[in-house]
């Protein structure tokens, strides 16, 4: 399997022979799965394949030339920044070009104006390191510090540190995109200047095309440069300590500390998080699934299952630990103020402080997201939605109820309702539902569960993430907007009429449901006889 010779030659002239290959061995290295995010699923097996060729551009001009060549020869392509995101960021059709963005690593930082401009090959890890050196920080997305900043900012992008800034799209400033037809679109101040410091449109804001709460997996173009906001932090150093696997940032506790509180009930949990938001204190607040704590405590998989085996529905129901990160942005006195207010809040609900190590192993550098796979070997977050606190309160338990019907193959988690936190100082609540399974089990129910969650959200009138990228567009489309899918398809059709940019997204999940035998039973919605896209 390879792309057309003429196309290959033309592409080779852009980057040189060193940075393009159609060798099947090298292409095999770019296969999605079998391990990874949302891997070991029917979607991955049915919808992905190794690329026909891989190319490594260096500049925006390279990308533009590549896209134009692909247009000329009708070569499908997928932009790929690290490949971490699982099957949906890999090749879906035959003879597809995978555009590996890792050589695009330009990085600028303006610490006076609190922003950095990056190319897609820059991950959060070095960005955060550079920010911390200068008294700033960014929100490293839950996916981990290894994810591409650009990819995360146009698809997901939050963590408990989003307490104050909230929605990830708010952090995007100027952006440069190579549209599917090869035109370059610069947004924000980049539209008129060589400086990406501001992101709003000149008039209407075309950043609306980049994402919609969550993103569209690069099917509307390739972001080649993105500026994002850095948040002011505090001046003390967070020293990396420990030898792998026990590394972490030693926190200067006069200016940064994590505090764990045990509270008597779920309502108390919600109240604490709500009041913290309302009091406009703290840098992060979250309640994590109990099994994450077990992962952090144990040395390996078997030990995890020992620990986890001790839990039950009872213990889950009674596990109410809220984690709070205090940051002394202004001064030590401000830190003391925050802590006094926090203690007032916790006291009001009858909570107690639990011992907490003065170390951050998770969110600030987020070096441990890979631990999600320790337990079972396969994992996906089926939904992660910022809405209101009441929405978050019930969304997780609703998922847990549905998931129980699919356990096994899902991991036994005794009905844990998932991860919650608050955003934008409590104006929103957040719930994320994560599922885990053993890839060697029958994974068909995983695929079926995925679609059932969309139906559950529609029926119970929840908002949901991953609209347009992960769920059947013709299932969710009519029910949200309504008919958001028609606008999305119109915009897709306008900018990529030949559907060469990451086909068949955003109809990939619809296509999957049509192709996979075990999905037929889930299909109870209308789709057109022919999905409105060219056949690959």
């Amino acid at each position: 399997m390879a792309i057309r010779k003429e196309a290959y030659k033309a592409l080779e002239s852009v980057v040189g022979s060193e940075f393009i290959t159609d060798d099947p061995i090298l292409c095999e290295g770019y296969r999605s799965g079998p391990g990874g995010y949302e891997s070991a699923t029917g979607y991955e097996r049915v919808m992905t394949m190794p690329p026909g060729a891989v190319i490594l551009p260096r500049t925006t001009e390279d990308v533009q030339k590549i896209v134009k060549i692909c247009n000329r020869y009708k070569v499908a392509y997928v932009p790929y920044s690290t490949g971490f995101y699982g099957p949906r960021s890999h090749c879906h059709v035959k003879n597809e070009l995978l555009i590996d963005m890792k050589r695009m690593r330009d990085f600028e930082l303006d610490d006076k104006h609190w922003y950095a401009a990056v190319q897609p090959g820059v991950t959060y890890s070095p960005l955060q390191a550079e920010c911390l050196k200068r008294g700033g920080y960014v929100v490293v997305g839950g996916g981990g510090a290894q994810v591409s900043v650009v990819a995360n900012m146009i698809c997901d992008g939050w963590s408990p540190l989003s307490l104050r800034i909230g929605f990830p799209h708010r952090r995007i400033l100027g952006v440069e995109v190579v549209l599917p037809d090869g035109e370059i679109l610069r947004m924000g101040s980049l539209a008129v200047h060589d400086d990406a410091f501001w992101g709003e449109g000149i008039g209407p804001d075309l950043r609306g095309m980049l994402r919609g709460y969550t993103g569209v997996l690069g099917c509307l173009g390739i972001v080649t440069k993105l500026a994002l906001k850095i948040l002011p932090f505090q001046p003390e150093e967070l020293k990396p300590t420990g030898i792998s696997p026990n590394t972490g940032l030693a926190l200067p506790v006069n200016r940064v500390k994590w505090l764990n509180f045990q509270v008597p009930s779920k309502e108390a949990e919600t109240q604490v998080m709500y009041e913290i938001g309302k009091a406009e204190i703290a840098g992060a607040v979250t309640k994590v699934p109990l099994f994450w704590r077990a992962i952090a405590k144990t040395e390996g998989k078997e030990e995890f299952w020992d620990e986890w085996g001790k839990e039950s529905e009872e213990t889950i129901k009674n596990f109410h630990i809220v984690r709070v990160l205090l940051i002394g942005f202004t001064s030590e006195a401000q830190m003391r103020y925050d802590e006094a207010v926090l203690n007032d809040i916790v006291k009001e609900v009858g909570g107690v402080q639990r011992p907490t190590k003065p170390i951050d192993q998770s969110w600030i550098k987020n070096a441990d997201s890979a631990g999600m796979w320790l337990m079972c070997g396969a994992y996906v977050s089926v939904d992660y939605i910022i809405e209101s606190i009441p929405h978050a309160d019930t969304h997780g338990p609703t998922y847990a109820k549905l998931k129980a019907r699919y356990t096994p193959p899902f991991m036994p988690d005794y009905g844990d309702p998932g991860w919650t936190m608050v955003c934008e100082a409590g104006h929103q609540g957040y719930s994320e539902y994560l599922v885990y399974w053993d890839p060697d089990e029958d994974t068909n129910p995983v695929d079926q569960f995925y679609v059932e969650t969309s139906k559950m959200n529609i029926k119970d009138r929840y908002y949901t993430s991953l609209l347009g990228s992960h769920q059947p567009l013709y299932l969710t489309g009519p029910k949200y907007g309504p008919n958001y899918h028609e606008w999305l398809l119109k915009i897709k059709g306008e900018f990529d009429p030949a559907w060469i940019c990451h086909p068949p997204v955003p109809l990939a999940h619809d296509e999957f449901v049509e192709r996979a035998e075990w999905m037929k039973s889930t299909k109870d919605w209308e789709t057109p006889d022919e999905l409105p896209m060219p056949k690959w």
Partner: protein
Amino acid sequence: MSIKDELEQIVEKKNVRDAAEDLVRYSRDLSLNPPGMPEVIVRPETSQQVAAVVRWAGTNNVPVVPVSSSTHFHGCTIPKQGGVILDMVNMNRILEIDEYNRKVCIEAGVTWRQLTEELDKRDMRVIMPLLPHPERSVLTDWLEREVPTNTVYDYGEPMQSLEVVWPTGEIFRAGSASVNGYPDSKSKGTNPSGPGLDFYRFVQGAQGTMGVVTWTNLKIESKPKIDNILFAAIDDLGRAQDFLYRILPRRIGQEVVLLNNVDLATILTDKWPDDFEKLRAALPAWTLIIVISGLLRRPEEKVAYEMEFLGEVIRNEFKDIALTDNLPGFPGIGKKLLSLLRKPWPKEVYWKNQWKGAAHSLFFIAKPSATPLYKSIVEEIAEAYGYALEGLGMYIQPIEHNRACHMEFNFFYDPECASEKALIKSLSCEAAKELLNSGAFFTRPYGDLAAINYERAGGYASALKRIKKLFDPNNIMNPGNLCF
């Protein structure tokens, strides 16, 4: 059937007008734009009616100009190609105040006066731009990206999910209000983003060209328990910016505002014209206003730590800045300004219009360090045009940790004097070009600014037109604005 007749079929008869005296009122506003007459005025009462009017207009190729306020400063609502004025005045309900989730849901016709009075009763507030006109639509001011005086919220804009009628006539909900059955849903409409794409971005800054927003959810905030308003007299703008670069990233202050003597005098003057001349002459070149507030919990302690921090910074690094709770020579200014900052403009004549009858505002987003340069650019051009510098109003609004700022120049003029208007129009154009060349970023290209900016941002304009064409294939939605 006449247009009026047809529209009366859609909305009630009382909600359709085409008398000359009514049409004239919509044909002009407080901007420098030339007048333009609509053909008819429609005042729908429901989203369905809005949708029906828009569908009718689409079918009949008649322009629609959405109007949500009774006062307009920028010319967007002057019909450029005739058509129907879609006045949202009847859609002025506060649909919901949700104190738990700290949000309101308001229709497009809800005014600042109306909303602030209602929220006041519940000890809540919505963050505000500087002294909004009391009769302006809150929804539209936020859609048009007015910049808030409050610098402390990282999340900036209060907008959440909204409902829009697209130019094709479809009613669509953006954000989490898109859930079927909303508001009878688990979703409360707090998320502006999605579904699928960030549709709400397309209508922001759109000057009514991308659709008619019928209602929106907005974040509201708790009212502080304690407020300390502080002032510093500033001669050197660059030095003021150094100070703001130092303190704002430390999350100091609620409202932080920088006004020159002309603007501040315009705001403070009660007795015109005598007090104005005195104030303008006596006020320092710039006044930095910082409100330090204590919130719901331990308010005194919050004020204390912020004051302690400020004191230390001033003692050690900014001895030349005297930040006090009163501006020397201006007794009572604190109380007066604090009240002004938390409410819409209280008087009948808008503050910008008190002096000469009208003012033209030229504003953009800038890096704060560049503001002294922009000041000298505009002053030089103003002088060249014979515009007296002692009549040049200036306002700088720091944004989010001083990562950027809104910079605004106010040119005051007599709206009855054609030559003055022409002078200011030309002056403003030339200044805009020079400012753009020097790094200023115009996110709200009203009037002449549109052509200047879209020419330079050709790629952006081209993509924008492609999007516009999808939503408004016949270009009926407020044509003649922006690049449409």
